[in-house]
């Protein structure tokens, strides 16, 4: 770990003027700093900022402070009642101890678990732009099958973000110059392209203040996470689904996927295919095929293609029967 300067911000305004890398729970940033994968010169501790409340927005939605911990968020009565898929996704992630520390803002920004990203002596375009990608042709079991590039095939590891994607969350920020802006989560993350080191739309010094959930999405909520052990493992494939039925027809559907790409994956085309239809196995298969039409395995992760297909079909049949 490189020596760094530490300061603690007491207000949002101070946080952005102090200039430096924000640290919240530190469960990701500190690990990366110890290995010198991240080497910030200045750290701004934001844990004392008044951003740890979950407030109602009036239109039935919720505003989640960036510092609300994953444990608190998962246990919140309103989340459990109205945004169930989020609670489930949070509880499927990490471990109790980590969730007690992990913040909502930090969770959105956690970095990939690619083994070569973690080994500083290996080429990695995300860690060291232009150095290459050791995961291509290497051990890439956990890597992407959608939206990857020849420069990076990493996945985004968050469960929480997948559920928030399905819930149409909006990221509220304050920029270094004091301006506020709102970024819908679906526009927040980037695909790797030829700049895999740039992962989202945040600008230098831009602080996530809140994450807003619009009014609750009625229907049956599912978060299905498939992984290599029963708990405490990142998703190989995960599906967040909210399906509302109208009689025997699907009235609304919202789907997001984890473990497949450099970002939580959302494909509106799939939802359009479902709406107005009667649930049938054939329909689910078509939706899954549409999701995976451009999927490409990297060798070790080829299995994710059939796994995602089967998981989605199963989730859809559960959600439509349950609704």
């Amino acid at each position, binding site marked *: 770990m490189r020596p760094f300067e530490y300061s603690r911000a007491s207000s949002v305004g101070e946080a952005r003027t102090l200039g430096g890398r924000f640290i919240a729970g530190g469960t990701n940033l500190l690990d990366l700093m*110890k290995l*010198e994968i991240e080497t910030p010169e200045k750290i701004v501790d934001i844990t004392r900022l008044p951003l740890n409340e979950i407030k109602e927005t009036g239109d039935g939605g919720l505003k989640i402070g960036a510092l609300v911990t994953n444990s608190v968020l998962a246990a919140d009565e309103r989340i459990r009642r109205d945004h169930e898929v989020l609670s489930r996704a949070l509880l499927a992630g990490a471990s109790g101890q980590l969730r007690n520390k992990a913040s909502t803002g930090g969770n959105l920004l956690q970095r990939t678990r690619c083994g070569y990203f973690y*080994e500083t002596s*290996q080429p990695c375009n995300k860690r060291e732009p232009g150095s290459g990608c050791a995961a291509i042709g290497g051990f890439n079991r956990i890597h992407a099958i959608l939206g990857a590039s020849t420069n990076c095939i990493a996945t985004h590891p968050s469960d929480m973000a997948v559920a928030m994607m399905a819930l149409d969350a909006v990221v509220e920020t304050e920029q270094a110059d004091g301006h506020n802006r709102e970024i819908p989560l679906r526009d927040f993350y980037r695909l790797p392209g030829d700049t895999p080191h740039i992962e989202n739309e945040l600008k230098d010094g831009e602080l996530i203040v809140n994450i807003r959930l619009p009014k609750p999405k009625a229907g049956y909520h599912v978060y299905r996470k498939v992984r*290599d052990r*029963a708990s*405490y493992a990142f998703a190989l494939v995960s599906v967040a689904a909210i399906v509302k039925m109208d009689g025997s027809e699907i009235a609304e559907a919202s789907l997001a996927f984890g473990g497949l790409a450099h970002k939580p994956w959302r494909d509106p085309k799939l939802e359009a295919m479902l709406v107005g239809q009667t649930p049938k196995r054939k329909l689910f298969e078509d939706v899954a095929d549409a999701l995976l039409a451009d999927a490409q395995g990297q060798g070790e992760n080829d*299995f994710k293609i059939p*796994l995602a297909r089967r998981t989605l079909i199963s989730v859809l049949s559960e959600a439509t029967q349950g609704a």
Partner: protein
Amino acid sequence: MNKHVMDEAIGETRLDRGTQGVIGKGAPRYEGKLKVSGTAPYAYEYLAGEDVAYGFIVPASIAKGTIRSVDATKAEAVPGVLTVISGDRIVRAASQPMAPAAQTIDGEVFHYNQPVAVVIADRFETARHAAKLVKVDYDAKEGRFDIAARTTVREPASMPMEPNQTRGDFESAFAKAEIQYDQTFTTPSYQAAAMEPHATTAKWDGERLTVWTSHQLLETAPGQLSKHTGVDADKITVHSPYIGGGFGSKLGLGPDAVMACLGTIATGKPVKIALTRQNVFQATSRRGETVQRVRIGVTKAGKITCFAHETDTTNSPGNGFFEPSGISSVFLYPGEDRIVSHNIVETDVLMASACRAPGEATGMLATEGALDEIAEQLGLDPVEFRRMNEPEVNPQTDTPFSSRRLIDCIEEGARRFGWSDRPKTPGSRREGEWLIGMGMASASRKNDLMESSAEIEMSPDGRATVRTGMTDIGTGTYTILQQIAAEMLGLPLDMVDVELGDSRFAPSSGSGGSWGANSAGSSVYVASLALIRELASRIDADAETLTLKDGHAISGNRQIPFADILKGEAISVTGKIEPGKQAEETHQASYGAHFCEVAVNVVTGETRIRRLLTVGAAGRILNEKTATSQCYGGQIWGIGYALEEDLVIDKRNGLIVNHDLAEYHVPVHADVPQLDVVLLEDRDPHASPLAGKGIGELAIAGVGAAITNAIYNACGVRIRDYPATLDKILAELPDDYLTAA
């Protein structure tokens, strides 16, 4: 020295009489309160409050080649850095168990992330940062990383077993066999992954070197450190009173110990080194991956006629240790004509060494799977098939078994588990998305008695203190030694103290190979007898018939408190156990059976274990609670072997890719169902004076195969390439399971 050589079977002993009534009972852990209150000091916690320095390892960024130069200028310029040690004294990894010393690097790189230098600084953070500033130049060479390539194949050493044992003419017998089973199994590399990383505190005072380190086997430690530092062995003391798990990886001395010693001598300050988790994974030792060919000839009626188990396993240059996958195949099943053989495929990867039941853990994943497959082919119940193939004597040597309750374990397990309710065909039992299946496997673990000694001192008030250089790696050694001494001497448990883990104490077997309880325990038995003789002689009583209970000697109608016999004087005696003719004249092993119920998800191929029962017979059980607890541990590791553990070596460059506990998966609570362990009443008078046998690793042996056999019974997918991750199951799951969902 009072010595007992195990030349003859043991008769009735004070342990059988059980006058004090403490042996075998589930006495609570002797050191338990210290551990749960955080006051049992581990190696890294010594010298708290003293002015100490910290070391951090500089790892190699290539897997093979020559070190051209090490430039530490930038690191040494960091304020707080005391020195940077590089050069030939740096060690590659841990030492092999009982080796004279660890392998030094001698200007070479033998594996990826091998230590190249160590930075010593006044603070841990400074050392860690400066380690990144050390610049190393290499001449990189092409390495060998793939066992399947078999680039260099060589003979193993004779550690930990005679690698090649054959009998008769297997090839012709197999050619003639009515049914020929021939399959190849593979197991990946593993990390022992003990909770406490290897760690050391070392202090050089100009004359003596005092070392606290997390180490299973102290006996050779001062000698090894002497070779590495040039300090006379008799000026070196090594302490390992508490150890947070070792699983074989601490049988050798860790690189932290060697480098902390070099550091304290170089700087004159005490030095602490705790390996990071990444260091543990890449600079201590690992279990070699294996490719195992199993061939078994069987008659149509189900009699095994010949048996071959041939293993390829890896190790790095200069290492003869091999994963002895065939260790149980030597004696477990019959067959006149036999081959058990091992080859080392040399690779340029971290050295392979002992890891959680070397041999059985990997070998029985293969052979117990094979037996299940053959039973199915013959239309026999796996329990019945094993019953039909129970040998009378060791099939390799014709020596009699000392005690062998394998079939009893299997039958007891089958009854308790409800084996008769096993689904008859794969895919026939289903609950929603889950297919349910049951599997079983045998367990066996070769028993070894090792030379070991212990001192018992009885103080004038009649309290006894046991002292031995033995270690307790979390297994319960403190407690069982306390129980043995208490039972033998007729003392309540709280009148017996135990001191372990000090190289100045009587030399012991150390903790490894499941021999610790039996070996160290027998030395306490021998010392106790000597002490009893001394007490008896002082009151003119016959030592043999003297009754001892609650701190009193009872002879005829006399009942004398020990304090009265001692008359203000302390007595100290030392006892030693040595293996003898019994080890040759009988074949000794512990036995067991595992029964498992799993659910396999038809959509995702995920496996969940629902029930797991192990029945074991391992001679006298010294403490029911700690023995059972050892078995739980074995069962849990078995879940890891079956479903999760896989130390991934990048075949292009030799990197261990998943070098931390986030990505190297061991079972977590949610993977572990209700575990059941039943220990049968057993005595093995040939194994040791305690009539006990090793139990630590018994429950690991075969348990993984019980799980994969259950997976087959659930869904019809045979796993021969471990672990049984969901992708392997998914690839072979028939699609009609899905449509039926």
